[in-house]
Each structure stands twice: as structure tokens, then as C-alpha cells.
């Protein structure tokens, strides 16, 4: 018979964004409401650019760095931070049996090659033959490896030696939600003792601005907090990396690792987005599974609201039914990094419950919280598909 579920602890966090790298930089950034945006580079679209990083610190070999595009470098770096934070970096034996679940999209295109080909193609005599020739000659052979979704995990195996298992989930925001839910399920049931989970995103890319602009999802014009974008909905893409080390309590205690927070629950949902109000209903259906036992006065919501329509408005409508809970949408400060967004928010929630207090509001829907923070519910509503909830608690 199945044993009682095992408790899962977050024992390591590695995060980076426009606010900097690591827990302190993020705590300080949120405390100050630090706004880091770039409205010029992809004007009229707004992005949150990654803070300066010395990649050598986590990816010592230049050869490894050269084999990666920025999204992989960010992820491999953040994974290294998480392993450091958990105190397992370089522990070959442990890393050799550590599981890994990565939430990833696709990698960068070579924008110069695309542009040059598109410029020359209409003038070519035989367009298809010309395209073959140019791709054969102009694509860097190793670029493919920097584009493949599962090669972030591959790079983490190579650079940090995490090899127990390796899985890459895709599917935009849902990838991160699935990764969290399955990680928790595996640890609670004894299928895994320790898992590295996370992802990364380079939001400073024309190809992804184009992709999301097909659907008109990118924030343009004046910057406003995510809750205040009704007149001009959209998300500001953000470059970010977020990894957690999650392990069973028993495994952590055996190696004298300190918990940052308890990873208490996670759930995914899949509303029928063709129906108005479906997101609100789906969150309400999922809520009791994740947030059925909250301590009054000691709990807050770390929202993954992005500013996309109608997702953010519907989430807001749901959260308004829990008016007793103060809300913080982290996307106002760090932007939207798609696949790793939910992991980032679980990390920020873990940080807040660990410090025992909620950071200040950064938008009209958010109100101050004075008391001690013990629990945080994390939301993640995909801009197009999928919903997620998670719960972290102080240990």
C-alpha cells in the first residue's frame, strides 16, 4: 500500500532577473519596488532586461558558454545558484542521483541570418534552392543545440553534473506548473528524494516578441503595474532564471540541510478558454486542493498575473473572492518569463515566508500586510492555456 505522503522541502533557490541575482537582491528589489524596464530596444514594446551577470562564476569553461545561447546560460547559471544555495554543488555522488525537471521553450534564432535570408530571398532566381544554400552555409552547426528545448537540461548535466534523471517539460506557462506538480508528486510518493527543478527565459529577443505579438500579447506604450493594464493589456517579457532544489524532509535532515520553506501543495488546471469566466471558475475549483487549510492573517497570494487579457482580469475576479488575502503580482517588477514563471514565483513565495513578511505592494489591487507571513499561495495563469496553484509554508 502507498505510504503516507512525504513532506517536501525547498532547500535551495537560484533566481535571477532584472532585479539581480540571488535571494537578497530580489528581497531588496521588491522592498524598494525597483522598476527596471527597457522601452527602447524593442519599442514600442517593453521588456525587463536581465541584470548584468558574470557567467564565469557558474559556468567556468568558456567552451561551455560558447555552446549555449543566452537562455541556456541564464538557466545553467541559475541552476548553479540553486545547487550552491542547497549546499550540494560539486557533491558528485548526490548530483549523480539527483533528478531534474526543466521547464523550457525554444532557443534563440540567429536573427541576422534570418534577416539576411529574408532580404535576399525575393530576388533569388530559384528561391527554394537559394534557401537551401543559405541555410547550409549560414547556420552555425552548434546553434541547433542551443535551440533544442531539452539542451538546457543537457547543459546543466554537463556543467553541474546533475544526472539522476532528466526531463524537459514544454508548453509555455504550463510547463512550469507541470514541473512543480510532478516534482512534488514524485517526492511525496518516494519516487524521488531530491530534484532540481526550474527553467529560464531570455525575453530580450525579437523572435519571441514577434511570436507573442501574433496574438497581440506584448505590453506596449506606457508601463503600468500588471493589475492596471485594462486599457492596454499585455505582458512585458522578462529575462529570468529560476531553479529550486526540492527534497524530502528525511533526505534534507539526513544531510543537515536547512529548509527555506515547505513546498506543501501544487495543482494544475485546464479551463476551457473559449468560455468567459472559465479561468475564474477553474481557480475556484482548484483552490480547496491547494489552499484548503490556510492560517487566517498569516497568509498571502503571490500572483503570477502577467497583464494578459482576459487572463489577468479573470484571475483578479477570483482573487477578489478571497479579499482577506493580500496579493502581490511579481510580474510588475520581474516581467513575464513564460515557462519558468511559476517556479520563479514559488521561489519568491518561499523567500517571503522564510523572512516571515510580505514585501510592499506595487499596484492598486495590492494592499499592505503588517503581520507575520507563514503561508503563501502562488498562482500561475497561462496567457493562453493552463492554470496553476501552489502552496509554500514556513517551516
Amino acid at each position, binding site marked *: 500500500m502507498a505510504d503516507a505522503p512525504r513532506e517536501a522541502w525547498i532547500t535551495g533557490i537560484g533566481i535571477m532577473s532584472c532585479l539581480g541575482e540571488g535571494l537578497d537582491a530580489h528581497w531588496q528589489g521588491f522592498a524598494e519596488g525597483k522598476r527596471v524596464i527597457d522601452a527602447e530596444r524593442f519599442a514600442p514594446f517593453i521588456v525587463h532586461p536581465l541584470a548584468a551577470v558574470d557567467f564565469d562564476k557558474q559556468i567556468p569553461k568558456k567552451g561551455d558558454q560558447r555552446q549555449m545561447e543566452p537562455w541556456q546560460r541564464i538557466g545553467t547559471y541559475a541552476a548553479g545558484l540553486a545547487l550552491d544555495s542547497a549546499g550540494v554543488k560539486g557533491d558528485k555522488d548526490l548530483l549523480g542521483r539527483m533528478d531534474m525537471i526543466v521547464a523550457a521553450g525554444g532557443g534563440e534564432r540567429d536573427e541576422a541570418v534570418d534577416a539576411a535570408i529574408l532580404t535576399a530571398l525575393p530576388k533569388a532566381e530559384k528561391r527554394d534552392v537559394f534557401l*537551401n544554400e543559405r541555410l547550409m552555409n549560414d547556420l552555425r552547426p552548434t546553434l541547433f543545440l542551443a535551440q*533544442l528545448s531539452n539542451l538546457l537540461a543537457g547543459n546543466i548535466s554537463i556543467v553541474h553534473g546533475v544526472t539522476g534523471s532528466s526531463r524537459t*517539460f*514544454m508548453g509555455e506557462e504550463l510547463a512550469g506548473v507541470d514541473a512543480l506538480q510532478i516534482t512534488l508528486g*514524485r517526492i511525496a510518493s518516494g519516487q524521488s528524494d531530491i530534484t532540481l527543478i526550474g527553467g529560464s527565459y531570455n525575453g530580450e529577443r525579437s523572435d519571441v516578441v514577434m511570436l507573442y505579438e501574433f496574438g497581440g500579447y506584448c505590453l506596449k506604450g506606457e508601463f503600468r503595474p500588471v493589475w492596471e493594464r485594462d486599457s492596454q493589456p499585455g505582458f512585458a517579457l522578462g529575462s529570468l532564471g529560476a531553479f529550486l532544489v526540492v527534497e524530502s524532509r528525511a533526505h534534507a535532515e539526513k544531510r543537515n540541510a536547512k529548509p527555506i520553506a515547505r513546498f506543501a501543495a501544487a495543482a494544475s488546471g485546464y479551463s476551457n478558454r473559449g468560455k468567459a469566466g472559465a479561468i475564474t471558475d477553474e481557480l475556484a475549483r482548484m483552490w480547496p486542493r491547494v489552499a484548503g487549510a490556510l492560517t487566517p492573517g498569516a497568509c498571502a497570494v503571490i500572483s503570477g498575473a502577467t497583464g494578459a487579457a482576459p487572463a489577468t482580469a479573470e484571475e483578479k475576479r477570483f482573487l477578489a473572492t478571497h479579499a482577506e488575502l493580500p496579493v502581490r503580482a511579481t510580474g510588475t517588477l520581474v516581467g513575464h518569463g513564460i515557462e519558468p514563471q511559476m517556479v520563479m514565483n514559488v521561489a519568491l513565495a518561499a523567500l517571503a515566508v522564510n523572512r516571515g513578511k510580505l514585501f510592499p505592494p506595487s499596484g492598486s489591487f495590492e494592499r499592505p500586510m503588517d503581520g507575520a507571513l507563514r503561508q503563501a499561495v502562488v498562482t500561475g495563469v497561462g496567457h493562453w492555456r493552463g492554470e496553476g496553484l501552489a502552496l509554500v509554508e514556513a517551516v
Partner: protein
Amino acid sequence: MTSYRDKSGRPVVVVTGMGVVTSLGAGKQDNWQKLVAGTSGISAIKRFSTEGLKTRIAGTVDFVPVDPLTAPALASRLADMAAEEAVAQSAIGAKGRFPGPLFLAVAPVEVEWPQRQEIAKASGANEQVTYTDLIRAASSGKFRHYHERFMFASVADGLAQKYGTEGAPVSLSTACASGASAIQLGFEAIRRGETDAALCVATDGSVNIESLIRFSLLSALSTSNDPPQGASKPFSKNRDGFVMSEGAGALVLESYEAAKARGAKILGVLAGCGELADSFHRTRSSPDGKPIVGCMRNALADAGLTPEAIDYINAHGTSTPENDKMECQCVITVFGEHAKKIPISSTKSMIGHTLSAAGAIEAVVTLMTLEHQRIPPTINYNVPDPAITLDVVPNVARDAKMARAISNSFGFGGQNVSLVLAREPA
């Protein structure tokens, strides 16, 4: 007495429905007949001009019309065909109400050249086309449908809606091991007791110009273009790379107990899964073979079996010089003396390498092998490689008594998965 739990007390997981589409045809019956007849599905690429390319062949699925053709659109259609066959065979749930989650192995999705050219044209840029022009055109709202088409989650979304799977569908990639990973995720969910059933699907429709060139630039593809049917020659001395192919495989997994309770026909048992990643190199496996050896050993341990219990291996067998040598060495390490007695064949010799779909297609083929007690051959085996001393079932199918088999999948990026499949215990 039938036991619904394994030695470790976990639910036994069985397969009650299977579906497959490859360049050989649609459906299990057609594929099986062609596989045991040693038929190749590889042909000259007709979908786009191959002028000036080193590799001009592939195992494309040309009999499934998709318009406009994009990799995710074809992948969706192939996945649907395989899932339909699997779900119909299992007769589980009700129409549009599959009682469990969907795990989908799918290739990364991106905008392709025909669309990129269409957008460039619409941008009205005259002399110099830049991404600024493309973004401007994208913003016009005229290409709204491309947002949905080029979302990674779009392939799973169509399946989840049609089959009414429970909860959020999981899309995943472990490169060439993806299909096996999808099965493993369903397997683990049932073992955790979260569900009694899972729909595990793997699909790939990526034979387009840029994908072909990318693999070609990594020197991974066979350039034996003439005749195309002879190009994929796993374990042969003159093997020179894999052949890109398309297809889909689908399996309905169920807990043995739930399947028996509803009187379902049991097609086979998923006895164990093993996994171990490689940290050696982005495209090459560790020269000591430890990750692959460990992966197969983990699968055997998970199934609670010794190497002697295995009667057949469906090889990863890509036909690249390195993979086949390494796989052979690792099989010898794991199975010792017994290795020479185990037939090992690569059905990629006929189907080609269906990449994200391969692990699931080959799991289906392996279960059909156990069902029919007949081993599909490794075709194009004309020049033996003295370094490969295994029984590769050369060229001709063979009858054999088999109770259990291993199906191997090893991916770029070092992700290795082995599945142990078995017949239903008597």
C-alpha cells in the same frame, strides 16, 4: 492468483490500447506486416527541394494530407491518428472522456520558413528586411492564428480537447528519448496512485528544410541517398548516420487492477523504466558507457528482473557510427555472456528515426513483437561490423519464444530511458 501489485507493493501497470503511424503506413496491422516483411519506409523527399543538400531522403508521412503544412500541424494529425487507434482498442472511458491525464512527447515548435516569408512580405519592407519589420507585421493582427499554431502547448491542446483527458496535458521533450519519457511519466502517475489510466502519445512531423539541415550540419544524417531504402543500416560496418522520419505512437496505460475490473484485454505489461542522464557531451555519449549501462540496469532493477530474464532488445539503433557501437558495448556490459543469446534488432532500419516519437513507436513495436512471438529484423545488414558481436536479427524476421523485452531510447543532450515490457502473466 493474479497480483495487482509488484514486489515493491506498487500498482502493476499494463497496456490496453496501442496506435501507430509511420512512413510504412497507418495502424498496427499495416505497420506490423511491413515490419516483419522487412519493408523500408524511407524515400526521396518530395515535400521541398533538396537541391544542393547532402541528405535528400527521409521517412516522411506523405499519405496524411495537412494544409497548410507545418511541423506542429502534421504532428497534431499524426498524434490524433495514433491516439484514436489506441483509445478505440482500449475501449476505455466514453467518447471524448478519457479517464486520466495526457502525456505528450512533441518536438520543439517554431515559426517555419514559409510563414516567415509570408510575414516578411506582409511587412512591406523593401530593401532590407529586419525583425523590426516582422514584429510590425505580426502586430497587425492578421497573423493571430500563428500565435496558437506556434505555441508548444498547441499540439497537446488539440488532443486534450478531443479526447477529454483529465487535468492539464503535459508536453515534454527529452530529444530522441521523448516517447519513452512520455510512457514513463504515465507509468509513474499510475504507480503514485494519482490515476488509474494515462494516455501517452509521442509524435513528430519535423521533416522540413531547416530541421533537416540542422541535423545535416551536425553530421548526424545518412548521406546514402541512393537507394533511399538502403540508407538506414544499423549495426552495419558502413552505417553513416540516421534517417529523419515522421510518425506517432500512442499507448493507453492502466493499472492492472482497473483494466481487469473492466474486463479490458491486456496487451502487455510495463514492467519497469530506467533513466540515467549523461554529462559527457551535448551530442556524444560518455565513452565509458556508464550512463547507458546504468540506464538499462535501472530499468531491470525497477522491474525486479535479472538480465537473464530478457528475451529481446528493441535497440535505439539509430545507424550512426557512434550510437550503435556504444549501444552494443553497453548491452554486452549489462548482459554479459547472456548478451550473445539475446536477439537485438533495430526497427529504425525500416522506419528511420522518428525522433520525439521513436520511444513510443518502438514500445508499440516491442509489444507487438511479444504478442506475435516474432522478431522484426534489422534490414540493410549487408556489411557486418566486426566490432558488433550481437545477434542483430539480420534482414529476415524470425520466430522466437519471448516473455520480456527491453526498448532503449537515448537522446541528444544525454537523456537515456529504457523500458522493460512483458507479456501478461499467465
